[in-house]
């Protein structure tokens, strides 16, 4: 079947989609957007969290057909989305030829000579920058899902208590950090948000 939807602000269509394919599979394998992660594919770990018409969902539990005509934001589009939060259309993000990891890209991976703020100047959303600054990224596999969930929390609640943060992120498993630095990151992003208001 064919599925038409908007991903990170750009209209997309996916052809030859199997009935049983998940939105996660279509994003990762057909759209070239591997940012949403495939850690359990059972809706238990939150690594594949995306916004579906603004609502955070586990994209592994959404059948691709359910995304027909809807708007999706993945971690790849998070910076644009945050930037255009007030606007009607969330940025222009990546398209099918955009942000995937081709083998050539993967082969060329090098950690560039920087202090963690990537060599290329790239605009990050406040929550993305806070995760880097607070040391909340270790292996990083849980990070995309946590970022999407945390960004939505901060959109709803600009000064969440620790209990609020824990509740909002309780659907996202992390195996490396012990969560303390993830809490730090969300607190940091919230504090920076307050400073700029």
């Amino acid at each position: 079947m064919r599925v038409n939807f908007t991903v990170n602000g750009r209209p997309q269509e996916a052809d030859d989609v199997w009935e049983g394919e998940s939105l996660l599979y279509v994003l990762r394998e057909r759209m070239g957007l591997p940012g949403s992660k495939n850690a359990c594919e059972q809706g238990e770990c939150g690594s594949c969290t995306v916004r579906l018409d603004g609502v955070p969902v586990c994209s592994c539990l959404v059948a691709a057909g359910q995304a027909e005509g809807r708007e999706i934001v993945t971690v790849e589009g998070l910076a644009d989305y945050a930037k255009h939060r007030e606007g009607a259309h969330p940025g222009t993000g990546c398209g099918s030829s955009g942000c995937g990891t081709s083998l050539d890209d993967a082969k060329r991976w090098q950690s560039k000579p920087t202090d963690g703020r990537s060599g290329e100047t790239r605009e990050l959303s406040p929550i993305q920058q806070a995760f880097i600054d607070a040391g909340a990224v270790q292996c990083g596999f849980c990070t995309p899902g946590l970022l999407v969930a945390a960004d939505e929390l901060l959109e709803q609640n600009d000064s969440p208590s620790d209990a609020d943060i824990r509740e909002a992120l309780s659907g996202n498993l992390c195996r490396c950090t012990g969560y303390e630095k993830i809490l730090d990151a969300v607190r940091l992003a919230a504090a920076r948000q307050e400073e700029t208001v």
Partner: protein
Amino acid sequence: MGVTGSPTNIQQRSKTKGGIGESTLRPDGTLKVTGEFAYSSDMWHEDMLWGFTLRSTTAHAEIKSIDVSEALATSGVYSVLTYDDLPTEMKNYGLEIQDTPVLAHGKVRHHGEPVAIVAADHPETARRAAAKIKIEYVELPVITDEASATGPDALLIHEGRDDHHIGHVPHPNIVHRQPVIRGDADEAAKRADIIVSGDYVFGMQDQAFLGPESGLAVPAEDGGVDLYVATQWLHSDLRQIAPVLGLPEDKVRMTLSGVGGAFGGREDLSMQIHACLLALRTGKPVKIVYNRFESFFGHVHRHPAKLHYEHGVTKDGKLTHMKCRIVLDGGAYASASPAVVGNAASLAVGPYVIEDVDIEAVALYTNNPPCGAMRGFGAVQACFAYEAQMDKLAAKLDMDPVEFRQLNAMEQGTLLPTGQACDSPAPVAELLRLVKSRPLPPEQQWLSAGEDADVRALPGGLSNTTHGEGVVRGVGYAVGLKNVGFSEGFDDYSTARVRMEIINGEPVATVHTAMAEVGQGGVTVHAQIVRTELGVNQVTIHPADTQVGSAGSTSASRQTYMTGGAVKNTAEAVREKVLEIGRAKLGTYHPAWATAELLLEGGKVVTDGGEVLADLVDVLEDEAVDLELEWRHRPTVAFDLVTGQGDGHVQYSFAAHRAVVEVDTELGLVKVIELAVAQDVGKALNPLSVVGQIQGGTTQGLGVAVMEEIIVDPKTARVRNPSFTDYLIPTILDTPTIPVDVLELADEHAPYGLRGIGEAPTLSSTPAVLAAIRNATGLELNRTPVRPEHLTAT
């Protein structure tokens, strides 16, 4: 040539930023937060196929026949391979003993063992085709514990077993056995006023890294294969993969792709050989990505253990002796079991002074899931038992449990039960003092808050199961001792290549190692080390691959010590070479070139007095200095197989925990309120990463204390809970605040004085939580994880 450094041209000395000791940020951080970091499951290649593994549904059976015809005839299927299709006589692999079949032949020995592999144009096609493979099994009795493994009529899991351990084990179903005997425990027991013994059970824990086993194999024109994969040790994989494929090692080129956590679970091979076989057979790139269900079968777990301990103590609280027997269940294949046995035995006494010990550790072959490496590696199970014993002894003596531990704590110079002296700081008593002296978290808030109490802070949390009635609080302590690095005479080394050159008018260093970055932050500290040693700001970390010498494994808390040490050592050699070039070119301009100790700082050559002699740009010009060197730690020896004596370990690390828990005694629910930790790290190369590792390790210990266990049916040896629905790891709601105290007592034998840190916090976290639950409830609790029924006696 622009010359600086004449005696009249003294410049301001500028420190290089981002060196060791600073909390430099991860170089891969931006890619990881934008979703662009290439994990192994993200690899993509035009025209690529998907591989799938068919696994046994039974734990022990003879395979009478396998019929793949229907699977092979499925539209979209390119290849179906079984044991008969393996290209060489080498059909097994293994870390220490080559007993693990690439694909089952003749027999399956555990539930989930790979039997056949399929390549198809869609993952679902591959799965459906695999379901059409017909296998005829003849069930065999299952061996699931020591009694069934070593009983008089026990079937042999590996018939015709032939390896170097066999002479030292009492039964072929025992993988390895290591006694450690020192002094005379029986004689010393006569001096004891109180003797305390206990039996303990440690459940099977899973690494549960989030990034599933995955990778992409691409067939090459020269008949070889390029493999992009998440692993902990590229060269160890290569050594096991190439012979099975029948290829020389230089035709199997491996590149590390992004690793989503490891914790020991990627030491053994998973999909590597399968993907290569399918790629070579079909001539197309093949990607394999395990789903979570498969992941539980795709890697080895932490050994479950049964431990019997006996300690004696005098009236004034001094330990007299210790006897113990540790039985580890290694499952169907050896994996790292021999080394886990060595660790459990040699560290069984913990960080205490006990001169007379009688220790025996064994690992069994059974039909349970194979077990091998996991964070803490044998020391974790022992720590759970000896720390429970310490609390029991203190209670019998009516002593404070921390004071009792401090009274018996080892220190620098103490002889371990292996006869090895601990020749670096051993701040056991101090670490306990640090966690004990922290202020306790506020008292039970609902007692005063009444209706306004936040139920999220109570056991049961959001489920709103209590408002505080029946909730009791407890506090518990534990401390642990872990070795760092590979022990028992293993020739452990790492290799680093460091290159320095001028690019766009700036000195730039490149580091190339085969170190697996699994999330621990090695790529960050390598850049910090090079900045410190070579005084350049710009450091590029080359992707890890097999085009450079082995870095050894990212395990055993060894990588910062070993590959960090190799990078330091190679960078120092590069510095010498740079200074040599400088002397030859510019030496006549300043006498300090010949006489002073020279350093590289801020892109310049400076004297130890801070005088600038030259810019690196002028020293190097078009020249590049490029060196690749191996680096070794001081040698160790194998433990004597009868007495366990020998200087078997490289270094030790220590951590202590204090746990505060609240228990709903009516429902049996536990809420860990705080888990404070103190650890000696020798030298914190990157304090932010150090704290992250300590908190992460602590949380894995918390998990095994209260929720994590792979449940294996004792009658069928089938795994009951291979999913994140049923195998629970701590969420952010289960994990408390984890305050960390870091000590930096340098180990003079280690690079920068550092101490491996990754594993130690996992040891003492579990027994501290158990001690706190015992303290809260008064129950004995001798097994982990603690389940509600243990707390409510239902």
